[in-house]
C-alpha cells in the first residue's frame, strides 16, 4: 500500500489522499473507492474511520481509495458560487472522478459516505453512471409501521416519557437542537447544517432508478430510534425489488459516530469483505 497527498484543481483545490494497493495486489485497476466527508468532520472521518477503512480496502480488498475534503471543509478552502452545499458536493465528486480518470484511468467508482456523505453519494450516483456502487452508513431511510410499533410501543408505557412529552407541549421543556445540545454557545461551535430528508417517494424513485441500473448498494445502519430492525430499509422502499443489488448490515448497539472500537472494527471488516467480493465478480 502506498499513499500520496493530492490537490485536485488549480484554483482552491480539493485536498485528498490517494491510497493504492501494491501493484501485484491490485484486484481492480479500473475501479476506485471515493470516501466523502461526514458533516463538518475533515476527511480522516469520525474516529479516524475513513483512514482505517481506506487502508483496509487497499490492503485487504486490493482496491485504490481516495479520501478528500469538500470545499469549505477540512483542508479544502471554500469556493464561491451559487450552488447549495448539496449541489456543490455532487459537482465536486464528479470533479474528483474526472481527475482520477485522467490521471489513473479509473473508469468506475464506488462512493462511500456516513451521514451527509452518503446523501452526497446517493445523489452523485443518480447523476453519474460511472458510479457502480455505493456504501452508505446511516443513509436515507424512513419509518415504517413496524418501526413505529417497535420504537413507540415501549414509550407509550413509560410514565417519564409521557411527562417529558407533556412538558414539551406546554413549552416548559424545550427540545434542544444542533449546537444547543452541547451547551456551548452557537458562535463557538460548528455543527453540520443538514438539509431535511427529501420526500420518501422521491428517494424511492431514485432507488428504483439506481436498482434498474444495477448499482450495487451496501447500507449499514447503526442504533437509533429511526432504524430499528434489519429489513426496515426494504420495507420502507417497497415495491423496489433490490434482490442481489442490496446488502444491509444493522449494528443496533453502535452509535452514529462509531466510537465503539468493536463496532468500528466490525464495520471496517464487513465493508472490506463486501467490496472484495464485489470487485471479484465477473465483468468488474
Amino acid at each position, binding site marked *: 500500500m502506498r*499513499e*500520496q*497527498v493530492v*490537490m485536485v484543481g488549480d484554483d482552491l483545490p480539493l*485536498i485528498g*489522499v490517494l491510497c493504492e494497493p501494491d501493484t501485484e495486489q491490485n484486484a481492480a485497476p479500473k475501479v476506485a473507492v471515493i470516501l466523502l466527508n*461526514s*458533516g*463538518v*468532520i*475533515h*476527511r*480522516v472521518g*469520525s*474516529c*479516524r474511520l475513513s*483512514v*482505517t477503512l481506506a487502508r483496509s480496502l487497499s490492503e485487504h480488498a486490493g482496491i485504490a481509495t481516495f479520501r478528500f475534503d469538500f470545499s469549505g471543509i*477540512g*483542508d479544502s478552502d471554500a469556493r464561491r458560487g451559487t450552488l447549495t452545499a448539496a449541489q456543490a458536493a455532487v459537482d465536486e465528486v464528479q470533479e474528483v472522478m474526472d481527475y482520477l480518470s485522467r490521471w489513473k484511468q479509473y473508469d468506475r467508482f464506488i462512493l462511500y459516505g456516513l*451521514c451527509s456523505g452518503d446523501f452526497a453519494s446517493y445523489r452523485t450516483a443518480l447523476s453519474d453512471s460511472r458510479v457502480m456502487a455505493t456504501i452508505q452508513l446511516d443513509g436515507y431511510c424512513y419509518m415504517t409501521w413496524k418501526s413505529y410499533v417497535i420504537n413507540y410501543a415501549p414509550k407509550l408505557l413509560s410514565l417519564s416519557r409521557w411527562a417529558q412529552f407533556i412538558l414539551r407541549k406546554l413549552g416548559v421543556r424545550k427540545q434542544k437542537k444542533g*449546537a444547543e*445540545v*452541547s*451547551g*456551548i*454557545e452557537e*458562535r*463557538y*461551535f*460548528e*455543527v*453540520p447544517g*443538514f438539509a431535511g430528508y427529501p420526500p420518501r417517494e422521491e428517494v424511492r424513485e431514485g432507488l428504483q432508478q439506481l436498482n434498474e441500473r444495477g448499482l450495487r448498494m451496501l447500507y449499514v445502519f447503526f442504533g437509533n430510534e429511526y432504524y430499528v430492525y434489519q429489513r426496515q430499509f426494504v420495507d420502507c422502499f417497497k415495491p423496489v425489488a433490490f434482490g442481489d443489488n442490496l446488502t444491509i448490515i444493522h449494528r443496533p*448497539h453502535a*452509535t*452514529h*459516530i*462509531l*466510537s*465503539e*472500537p*468493536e*463496532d*468500528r472494527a466490525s464495520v471496517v471488516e464487513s465493508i472490506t469483505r463486501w467490496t472484495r467480493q464485489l470487485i471479484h465478480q465477473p465483468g468488474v
Partner: protein
Amino acid sequence: MLEAFYFGPSESYLFGVFHPRMGVDRNEAVVLCNPFGQEYMRAHKSVRRLAINLAALGYSVLRFDYRGTGDSAGDLQGVTADHWLEDIGHAVQEVMDMAAVGRVALVGLRLGALFAARAAADFSGVSRVVLWDPVTSGARYVEDIRIAIADAQAEGSRSRLISPDGALHFNGFSMPAEFQRTLATMNLNETLPSLNIPMAQIVSHEAEEFAALERHLGGRANFYAELAPAPHNWNYVDHVGGILWPKPVIDAIEQYFDQTPILGQGALCANRS
C-alpha cells in the same frame, strides 16, 4: 497557496500542510502541535485557522499529524511519546527547509503543548514555545482518562473501556499501554524551567494547573501569560461531529505573534488577563 504533502521517514511518513508566509518576513516559522484523539478532531478547524492567520502575519507555518494519527502512517500500536517528539523534530526541520529560516516557534494545544515544550528542549532551532490550554502532566492526563473510563463503565459504556492489553479506548480513539507509559514521564513543570527561550501560556479558561505554571514561571522575563475566555470542551462528543471554534483564544495567539516578534523579546515580560 497552501501545500499539502507527506514528509519524514518512509516507514512513519507524516501528513503536513505548509502555509507560506505572506507579506512581511518575520524570519521565523511556526510548527503547530495537535492534541490527541477526539480533541484533535474537534480542533482541526481551529488549528487550520490559526495557521492561516499566522501566515498572513508573515510567519510560514507547518501543521502536521503525528504518526498513528490523522492521515499520517499507521496507528498507535508500537508508538511511544518519544516517537511523537521525533515527529516534531522532523516537522521543525521540514519547515526550516521550506521556509528557509533558522528559527521555529512551536505552538501546542492541550497534549500538543506538553510535547511542544519537550521538543523545544530537545531540538535546536526552536525559538519559542506557546502553550495553548496545556496539559501540564502526562501522568495526570492518562489518569483523568482512566477515571472517565471507570465512570463510563459503571454505566455500561461500549466506547470508553480498557482492553485486556491495557489500551485505553476513549471517545473513539485508542491509546496503547506503551504510549501511556512514556507519556506519563512528561511534565511541563519539569521541562519548562530548563528552557532558555521565550515561553507563552495562552489559555481559554482558568485552571489550577495553569495558575501553578504561571506561579512557577511568572518571574521570568521571557514568560508571557494571557487568559482569553473561550469554550474549551475539547472532549465534548456529540452524534454529528460538531467542531469547537474558540475564536477569542485563536485571536489572542495571533496577537501575541503579531506584537511580539522574536527580535523584540523585551515585550515578552508583560502578562495580561
